[in-house]
């Protein structure tokens, strides 16, 4: 497969030299495993693999609606259903990124040099030659979610440490409403992983729900970045579930560009073993009367590490901003660790800005209360952990995704 790299990719490669690779001294990359990242090989995507080590359907939430499967950075036509029309509704267009017009790609992925904040973003821009472009025409409200699945199998067709890059471009038209679920999986025992960039534009009065479920193998690395620009009075809901990978990173860069926009973000990171699960959130209020909510929860067992680095930037002129941020963490082991940091920069007037973080262990009194009702100690523990996590899981609007996550977390009913 010889991908025809869009022009933006070339400029991204050109930039690499000047940007440099982030180090521990960069706040946003402080907890990243730099030695491991340095061993990763970013390269051109190499297409489909015939045999996955698992049944894809069994590993995915079963959603109605179109499904696009990207295997090792390339859209897998056979595993995808680009059904639009009857299923997704008229005015819904799904196009493989590789076949998309370079104008469209440029609109979504071209950016000024200053906006390419680090080498890993530049590498994604350089090598994500395929992916999907989702366009929802003005006033269109498809009822079914669109499912984008990214599967990587490092070592199958390239180096064991290969990082596969892909990109998703989403345009939600004026007054439209849509839901996109991105499930990101890995297979095999190799240490590579995936880099996924999602770029979203919400038109005025649009409503958009975006769910990311990151569940790569525990040996792998995932670098995910979601960028959203919100038009006037548009509403964004992001739900992230950072569950897999040895280093699972989910970055959000949200810009409330239109007046009265609403960004409602929640996320769960649930780590075991020696996982590091890193949330890097920046919400930029550019226009008046915007509302943003960040509510992230961490559940960290064994020697896992959670990171929440949450920023709220209220720019000059973004008067009347109402922004809140919370990060609550449950440490289940005395070797587990969480690093939580708010970053607030407020340069406007009449701004309400709240933030709070908690780190706690399972409440002994609550455990005792449950046990006094006959619930065995282990069950009581599970019930409390589930109750803590469910406050994020319940935010997801799609039943099938909720139950998939509950199952993945071992929170199913008996």
């Amino acid at each position: 497969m010889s991908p025809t790299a869009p022009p933006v990719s070339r400029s991204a490669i050109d930039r690499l030299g000047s940007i440099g690779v982030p180090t521990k001294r960069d706040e946003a990359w402080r907890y990243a495993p730099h030695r491991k990242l340095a061993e990763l090989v970013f390269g051109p995507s190499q297409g489909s693999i015939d045999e996955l080590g698992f049944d894809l359907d069994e590993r995915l939430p079963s959603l109605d609606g179109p499904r696009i499967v990207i295997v090792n950075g390339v859209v897998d036509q056979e595993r995808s259903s680009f059904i639009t029309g009857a299923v997704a509704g008229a005015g819904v267009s799904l196009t493989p990124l590789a076949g998309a017009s370079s104008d469209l790609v440029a609109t979504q992925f071209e950016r000024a040099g200053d906006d390419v904040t680090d080498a890993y973003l530049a590498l994604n821009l350089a090598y994500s030659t395929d992916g999907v472009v989702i366009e929802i025409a003005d006033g269109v409200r498809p009822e079914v979610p669109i499912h984008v699945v990214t599967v990587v199998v490092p070592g199958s067709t390239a180096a064991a440490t290969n990082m596969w890059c892909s990109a998703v471009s989403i345009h939600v038209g004026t007054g439209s409403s849509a839901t996109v679920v991105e499930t990101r999986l890995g297979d095999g025992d190799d240490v590579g992983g995936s880099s996924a960039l999602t770029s979203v534009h919400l038109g005025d009065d649009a409503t958009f729900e975006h769910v990311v479920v990151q569940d790569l193998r525990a040996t792998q690395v995932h670098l995910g970045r979601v960028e959203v620009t919100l038009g006037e009075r548009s509403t964004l809901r992001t739900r992230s579930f950072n569950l897999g990978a040895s280093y699972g990173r989910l970055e959000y860069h949200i810009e409330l560009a239109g007046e009265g926009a609403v960004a409602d973000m929640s996320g769960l990171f649930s780590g075991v073993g020696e996982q590091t699960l890193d949330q890097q959130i920046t919400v930029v209020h550019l226009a008046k009367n915007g509302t943003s909510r960040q509510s992230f929860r961490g559940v960290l067992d064994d020697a896992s590490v959670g990171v929440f680095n949450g920023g709220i930037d209220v720019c000059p002129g973004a008067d009347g901003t109402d922004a809140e941020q919370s990060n609550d963490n449950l440490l289940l082991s005395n070797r587990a660790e969480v690093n939580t940091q708010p970053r607030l920069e407020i340069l406007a007037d009449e701004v309400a800005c709240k933030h709070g973080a908690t780190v706690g262990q399972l409440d002994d009194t609550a455990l005792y209360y449950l046990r006094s009702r006959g619930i065995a100690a282990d069950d009581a523990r599970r019930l409390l952990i589930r109750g803590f996590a469910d406050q994020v899981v319940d935010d997801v609007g799609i039943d099938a995704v909720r139950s998939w996550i509950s199952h993945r977390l071992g929170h199913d009913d008996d």
Partner: protein
Amino acid sequence: MLHVENLTAAIGDKQILKGLDLDVGAGEVHAIMGPNGSGKSTFAHALAGRDGYEIGGTVTLDGADLLEMTPEARAAAGVFLGFQYPVEIPGVNNMYFLRTALNSVRRARGETEIGARDFLAVAKDAMALVEMKQDFLDRAVNAGFSGGEKKRNEILQMAVMQPRLAILDETDSGLDIDALRIIAGGVNALRSPERSMIVITHYQRLLDYIKPDFVHVLVDGRIVQSGDYTLALHLEDHGYADFVNTDLNDAPERPLAGAPSSR
């Protein structure tokens, strides 16, 4: 049915229960009254099995040694503690919690578990007892409940669990008169010849609604006086001052500076 002999409880160096004796027969309601800090709540938690106490003495329920059991095993044996401060458990649905509790106990007793539909019928009866609406069950356990709602939820749980021995710890604290009436109504409806109750309270007021068969005065970790309902009336008139002054072996000979001389 419940036999408590020379029960002691300490946290670190602090001895709280200092040799408590009590026998509660089947179907009896015993009130335990006492001033703040006398050990009332510690007694309740010692029966329910809370961690953190050094416990001595003997407690048996129907001959079985309670002190050897985990809190969940005690629940399966029929012990229920209505908490003075019911615990908020955000994210855990009240209905799910109740059914999990009931089925855990049923499993432990070797009984079949109860399905969701049958459980709903059980829950509805229990709700009627404490005048609760359906939406109570759909909310998270005690989360955002008012003081009265939390206490009603305790009695609701008791109605679902149908315990052998119910211990109600300061169930009246923080209740207005209407809530008190509802809760007492629920408790009275659950009185039965097979069920014993220990009602712990600071004030006599609750006992106007739940008439005990026996009243015990707990002071400084021991029961210093036992009697019938009229003992509660005496306490209402005279307070605990008599007992505190005469029964504290280690009481100071002179009042401490600044201490009130009487109630």
